[in-house]
């Protein structure tokens, strides 16, 4: 097992380098030279030249990448030219918000998706199954910005059960914190559960046709035990992959959801960095997010190995 972990970790290195290179390239190739952005409506050619020199923008791009990477390896991700905040400060400040949002969204998504999938798999082809598969398809097609506004109007403006926007740190007031997170987490979960449900449902249907399930039935085991113990575990490999990939999708969704619900998370930080061309923050945040995503996939790989011994021993 240790060897497996070491091998996988070693594979992460080139992936992370590729990610950092891509991040740097995308940020550098965005239209609109940074010097112009900073100088705004006084971007005379001389001033632009001077600033480009000061910021090292006149160096070749590969050199800038190497020196940026060098600083990153030393733990220095740079400072925002707009706020003077370091990338590390900015990310650490915002990370808990996005992390909580993703965690809650994933929990709610699983809490809706898994039971519905099992119920559908058991009665596959029934009216209930068709209804749920159909509505899952509908939900999948509904963009987060639409469901967010609908939820706000229903629960915040009309019923006044929940706040429309805002945030309180968990440590300050846990109950208020969760109240602020209900609608954003639900919004993201609404786009999450259909995927979870559809994948788990089809895997479950396949598993339920396996011989050993028939055997279990023949032995007279309780249907609930067959479903949750014998069928769920082998059916959940794809589910774990999906959950891992979803984390990446959730980061994308968080951009929109954090903006609508005014949550001070990574998504908002990234968005405002893009709008204001705060490249240092942009590069840093994307690197963090991508690194997180890569790590998440690493964890998923490990979970595979735990669930399926064939993978652990390298025979898969």
């Amino acid at each position, binding site marked *: 097992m240790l060897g497996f972990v070491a091998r996988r970790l070693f594979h992460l290195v080139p992936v992370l380098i590729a990610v950092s290179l891509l991040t740097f390239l995308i940020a550098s190739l965005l239209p609109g*030279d940074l010097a112009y952005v*900073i100088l705004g409506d*006084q971007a*005379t050619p001389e001033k632009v030249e001077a600033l480009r020199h000061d910021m090292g923008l006149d160096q070749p791009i590969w050199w800038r990448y190497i020196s940026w990477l060098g600083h990153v390896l030393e733990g220095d991700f740079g400072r925002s030219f707009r*706020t003077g905040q370091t990338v590390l400060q900015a990310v650490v400040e915002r990370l808990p918000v996005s992390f909580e949002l993703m965690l809650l969204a994933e929990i709610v998504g699983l809490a809706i998706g898994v039971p519905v999938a099992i119920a559908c798999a058991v009665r596959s082809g029934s009216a209930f199954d068709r209804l749920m598969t159909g509505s899952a398809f509908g939900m999948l097609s509904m963009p987060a910005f639409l469901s967010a506004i609908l939820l706000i109007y229903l629960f915040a403006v009309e019923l006044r059960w929940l706040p429309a926007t*805002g945030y309180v740190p968990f440590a300050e007031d846990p109950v208020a914190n969760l109240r602020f997170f209900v609608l954003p987490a639900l919004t993201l979960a609404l786009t999450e559960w259909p995927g979870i449900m559809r994948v788990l449902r089809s895997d479950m249907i396949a598993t339920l046709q396996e011989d050993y399930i028939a055997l279990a039935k023949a032995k007279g085991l309780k249907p609930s035990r067959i479903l949750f113990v014998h069928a769920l575990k082998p059916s959940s490999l794809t589910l774990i992959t999906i959950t891992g990939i979803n984390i990446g999708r959730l980061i994308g969704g968080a951009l929109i959801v954090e903006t*609508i619900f005014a949550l*001070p998370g990574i998504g908002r930080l990234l968005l405002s960095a893009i709008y204001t061309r705060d490249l240092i923050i942009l590069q840093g945040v994307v690197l963090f997010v991508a690194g997180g995503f890569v790590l998440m996939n690493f964890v998923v790989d490990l979970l595979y190995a735990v669930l399926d011994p064939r993978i652990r021993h390298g025979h898969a």
Partner: protein
Amino acid sequence: MKAVSRSRAVARIFAGTLFGVASFAGGAQAQKPGGSITVGLELDIPGFDPLKVGVFDTAAETAAAAIFDTLATLDDKGEVQPKLALSWSHSDDFKTWTFKLRPNVKFQDGTPFNAEAVKANFDRQKDPANKCRCAFYISGIHDVQAPDELTAVFNLNDPAANLPGIITQPSSNFVMQSPTAWKTKGDDYNRNPVGTGPYMLKSWTAGDRMVLEKNPDYWNKGHPYLDRIILKPLPDAQSRFASLQSGEADIVWDDEYDADNIQNAQKNPKMTVHTYVGSGAQVYAFNTKAAPFDDLRVRQALVMAIDRKKMSQALTNGLTRPASNPYGDGSWVKCKDDGALPTDLQKAKALINEYGKPVDFKMIVTATPRGRAVGQVLQQFWKQAGANMELEQVDQATIVPRAFMRQFQLTPWRIIDLADPDPQMYANFHTGSPVALANYSNPELDKLLEHARTTADTAQRIEDYCAISRHINHEAIWFWTFQNTYYAISTARLKGLPKIYGGVIDVSNVWLE
């Protein structure tokens, strides 16, 4: 404070010393002290140090209006009133302005506010070593001197007949910041601002909320009324309005592209819609050195083909007001004849026919839903006149360098709401200015612009500016679509909001009923 007239302010000084009277700002409504409000802004505030952020956006100015003071301020009639300065005078050529400062004012960190502090604020922005982006906007100020404790002298490079009006904006240039604070806090000063204003920064969570607490030692006794102001960035227009409806916010920023919500709020007795039609306009510049806009007929034809009323209806349910000159209803420049070309599609067609060659061109628009919508409406008008416009969508940050390098045929621009037309009109139209985007030079126009900035007599200046407008409208080197209208929506309980000059929601003196 903003509503206090000059004579009343002077009266307050005497009355204040004789009787210790708390508040003079009269009016029919009784101001109620206490309470707190939440303000929903459009943008995150990056900070307050001019060296870091360069210029403040309207969200930062809203906060700055509460934390800092300016030397002078505008009342609701648009007249300049004293604030940190009590009075001012100028030399005959308008190149030297002397401000007498308010005594016994302290910054929130205890640093005394005096002429040295005023000088230090400007010196810091102008120091070439600091390379402050803010310096551009005060390039007309040569230096500031402090001959004694309470006298600040501004020496200007160019004459300015209305300097006190120009410095009323709570921008990064003109709010007075504590020199001690920026010196001791260094990099951290940006997010820990210290001013002389009615509110002090208590806490600030990036991207979430800025909490301002009443300054107990504020120089204007009896002010402010509220104990606390919370500023929150609520970037999404729909959820910002929903926050007002559900009570999470008491006042929110808005604009005419959110027409549905503004019109709903106007019908709602529990809400107040605050509107201010400012000076300036949404404007567009033709590059007169690039074909086909090197021909006057083409430029005139395109301007005449625009039906601004229809455009307003299509884009904003009719909320925006058409503009026929660069000054707008909010400006003191009112023209009997601004020389606006009429809306006349037939004439436009005729002019394009007369030109004889096909009129194909590209117009730069911002790659946003709004930018596209505006571009598409114009495209339709021009198509009817026989001209083919292609939209070139670029990002906001790209427009500026393209405009500077004159790499465009037609570009959007903006004339913002300022107390005086001179800074922008001179920059936009005087020969040789980097933002004289039309690439147009005319000695007569230059002369008018120079005359307008060196004349004290308002009537004469109005005449100059109207002549300038007639010239530009006739030459059709720039055109204007809509006036700048600013909106804020609040709960009806919120009272005392001054005019939203420049889109800045100044809540520093409001109260709750």
